């Protein structure tokens, strides 16, 4: 059954078929590993090796601290440079998995005498773990279906844009490591359920521990696995293997997870983790029933016993849960996760969660953009899974369906759905291609009917015989195969294009096309942060909107009032109130917070649309949520948000407006337009004659993107 051309090629090596197959598989996996790594390097090649976005800067700063001061200091670190004057207990409020991983890689490389800087390690951690994820996807596919599906899964997940979006080089964020940990934990658990040994259960507990240390999304695992166990119990697939796997993983995993200070005792106290405990007790009940069934020889007695026991157990569980929740011991679902079940909750009650652009519901275009052909291969794969139901395929079906639901609720959760979609689509592709190629290679059955009746029935399963009523089957199979390969090649092209165009921008460095088509780079952010670092006293405090907090502490090395951690809503609301008030009231708030410098981001000169004036309404809403003196309608005109002459008077005189447009009224931004034309909003501004009384301009970057103001001390009384 050997392919003649490959065997001709490999004949000089005298390899048997099994070895040829192994060689092909290993070489494919190596190529996929390299591909997954290099497709994420666009921004490093185009710009430079730097950390992107906002959150990764905090991770970078903590990793730097870890490598400089050691683990004990890191674990007990109290950071007084952010959230002035409150400070932040960093050791107890972060997920250390990413930092510890990067620090270990750094130590290993230094041990091997490669003197790399920690920043290089941080930048390349995510692509490295993406490559490892492809390997895990291969083994997972092999476990669920067969090695062909595993290979296709590895290839699909190597280039899938849904995963690339959060794991490009430079995106040093928790998700880069967490998706690897997620898939690894799921693979180990499915392996444990298939094998039924304690060792694999222990491995899955360690995988879960790594996941808990890496990302807050571990709640998905601790709810999906009990749900899966429940589905297996309901469909009558209880077995000793399942009992062993789940119990080992739950007990050891829970204990290990509680070692992370940020998670703490949530596994026994929080409503989000109660499903796992409930299923744990239910498993004990099933084990007990299994034992009783084995003991008793009379089945009728056993049925009655069964019904009594199950009702009692469920009732007891329900009562315990009810008592726990009513007495307040078990806390209800927190806002972040509750808004997944009820998507309208955040908009009404928690504006700070609703304001993050990644938390918005997903549009169809995002799905198509991130998944391409996988979107219709997913239902096809589900069909194949249902045809061959086993414990493992039930798991992947559940993972796929639940993650797709959550991906529809929140854009950033497309990332969690990506491995499931890739695996299920891989099953569809692999099964289809396998059936088609078997058709292509089958021999014509006509001549054999008479003589080989006995052997044909044995061989019918391996070589599908051609149906004589459909004479063009081979041609049809060939055409379908070409179609399938064409689709896959289009997928690869699409993914590379998406990665290059959409997901490789560092967002701290902006690029545009100049008038002659040359590339113009705006490096204003880093210019401003380094100005802060070099020209302000070391204990200066900087007030800005929370988006820039991490970058200011990491690159500017100065104390900030609020940053991206957003753990204290009142503090953020105070800053929002200061930005939305008239200058005198704002000055009082600024003095009470000991602020020395105020930083705003302004996109009117360059047309940059993610600046503070566009975010201003969120400042008003968040500030107004805590201080009712700030009312959103004061800043709007007929429900419209304007900055030109027709804008509301409070808008024209609030601190944010003044700081953004100070001296902007004399500036010519575009040929043919009046001075003071705001290119980001497309209007001429209303208040051109701005005078600042309590602040003075300290620094404006070369393209006016970041503007820094110094707070003047109060006037002398006499």
């Amino acid at each position: 059954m050997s392919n003649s051309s490959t065997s001709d090629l490999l004949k000089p090596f005298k390899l048997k078929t099994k070895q040829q197959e192994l060689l092909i598989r290993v070489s494919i996996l190596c190529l996929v590993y390299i591909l997954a790594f290099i497709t994420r390097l666009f921004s490093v090649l185009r710009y430079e090796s730097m950390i992107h976005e906002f959150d990764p800067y905090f991770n970078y700063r903590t990793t730097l601290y870890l490598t400089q001061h050691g683990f004990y200091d890191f674990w007990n670190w109290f950071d007084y440079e952010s959230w002035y004057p409150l400070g932040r207990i960093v050791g107890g409020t972060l997920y250390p998995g990413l930092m510890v991983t990067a620090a270990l890689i750094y130590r290993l490389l230094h041990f091997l005498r490669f003197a790399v800087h920690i920043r290089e390690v941080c930048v390349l951690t995510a692509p490295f773990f993406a490559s490892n994820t492809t390997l895990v996807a291969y083994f997972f596919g092999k476990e669920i279906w067969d090695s062909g599906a595993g290979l296709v899964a590895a290839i699909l997940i190597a280039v899938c844009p849904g995963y690339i979006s959060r794991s490009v080089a430079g995106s040093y964020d928790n998700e880069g490591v967490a998706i690897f940990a997620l898939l690894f934990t799921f693979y180990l658990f499915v392996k444990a359920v298939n094998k039924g040994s304690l060792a694999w259960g222990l491995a899955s507990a360690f995988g879960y521990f790594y996941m808990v240390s890496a990302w807050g999304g571990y709640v998905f695992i601790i709810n999906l696995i009990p749900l899966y166990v429940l589905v297996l119990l309901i469909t009558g697939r209880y077995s000793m293997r399942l009992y062993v796997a789940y119990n080992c993983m739950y007990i050891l995993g829970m204990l290990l997870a509680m070692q992370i200070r940020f998670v703490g005792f949530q596994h026994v106290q929080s409503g989000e983790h109660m499903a796992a405990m409930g299923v744990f007790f239910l498993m004990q009940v099933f084990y007990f029933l299994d034992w009783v069934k084995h003991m008793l020889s009379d089945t009728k007695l056993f049925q009655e016993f069964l019904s009594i026991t199950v009702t009692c157990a469920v009732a007891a569980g329900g009562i315990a849960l009810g008592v726990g929740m009513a007495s307040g011991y078990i806390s209800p679902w927190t806002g972040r996760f509750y808004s997944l079940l009820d998507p309208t909750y955040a908009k009404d009650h928690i504006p700070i969660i609703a304001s993050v652009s990644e938390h918005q519901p997903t549009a169809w275009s995002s799905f198509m953009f991130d998944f391409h052909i996988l979107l219709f291969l997913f239902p096809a794969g589900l069909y194949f899974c249902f045809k061959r139901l086993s414990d493992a395929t039930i798991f992947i079906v559940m993972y796929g369906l639940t993650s797709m639901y959550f991906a529809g609720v929140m854009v950033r959760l497309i990332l969690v759905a990506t491995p499931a979609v890739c695996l299920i689509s891989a099953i569809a592709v692999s099964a289809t291609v396998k059936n088609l190629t078997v058709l292509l290679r089958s021999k014509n059955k006509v001549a054999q009917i008479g003589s080989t009746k006995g052997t044909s029935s044995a061989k019918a399963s391996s070589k599908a015989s051609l149906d004589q009523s459909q004479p063009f089957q081979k041609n049809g199979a060939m055409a379908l195969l070409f179609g399938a390969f064409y689709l896959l090649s289009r997928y690869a092209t699409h993914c590379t294009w998406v990665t290059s165009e959409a997901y490789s921008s560092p967002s701290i460095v902006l690029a545009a096309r100049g008038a002659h088509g040359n590339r113009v780079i705006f490096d204003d952010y880093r210019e401003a942060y380094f100005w802060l670092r070099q020209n302000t006293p070391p204990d200066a405090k900087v007030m800005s909107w929370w988006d820039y907090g991490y970058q200011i502490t990491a690159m500017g090395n100065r104390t900030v009032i609020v940053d991206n951690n957003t753990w204290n809503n009142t503090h953020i609301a105070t800053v929002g109130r200061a930005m939305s008030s008239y200058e005198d009231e704002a000055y009082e708030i600024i003095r009470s917070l000991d602020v020395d410098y105020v930083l705003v981001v302004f996109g009117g000169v360059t047309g940059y649309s993610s600046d503070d004036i566009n975010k201003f309404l969120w400042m008003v809403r968040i500030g107004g949520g805590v201080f009712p003196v700030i009312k959103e309608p004061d800043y709007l005109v007929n429900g419209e948000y304007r900055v030109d002459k027709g804008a509301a008077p409070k808008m024209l005189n609030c601190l944010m407006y003044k700081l953004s447009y100070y001296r902007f009224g004399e500036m010519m931004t575009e040929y043919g337009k009046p001075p003071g034309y705001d290119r980001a909003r497309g209007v001429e501004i209303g208040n051109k004659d701005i005078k600042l009384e309590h602040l003075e301009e300290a620094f404006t970057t070369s393209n006016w993107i970041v503007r820094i103001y110094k707070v003047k001390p109060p006037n002398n009384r006499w």
Partner: protein
Amino acid sequence: MGRTSSTKEDAGALFHSLRSAYAATPVNLKIIDLYVGFAIFTALIQVVYMAMVGSFPFNSFLSGVLSCVGTAVLAGKSNFLSPLFAKDLPPERAFADFVLCNLVLHLVIMNFLG
């Protein structure tokens, strides 16, 4: 009325048949069951103590209770003498797994005790 008396009879018959079947199990199985029962009993005592004294070092309480529950569960699962045991693993491998898991469990407990 006939219904309830028949269920009572059934319950009695159930109880008797369970007792006789259990009395027939070999002694070493009963010893392991005793070990599991003792671990759970220790956990219950700790819960009662916590209810009396208050749960201040909660991590210590949790680690104590979970170590008992953990050893009970692990012993129940590794019990390769039991007829419920999954047949595809050799007993030596099951015992090695048991030792490894117990080792990890107790190391984590020691770390968690504070």
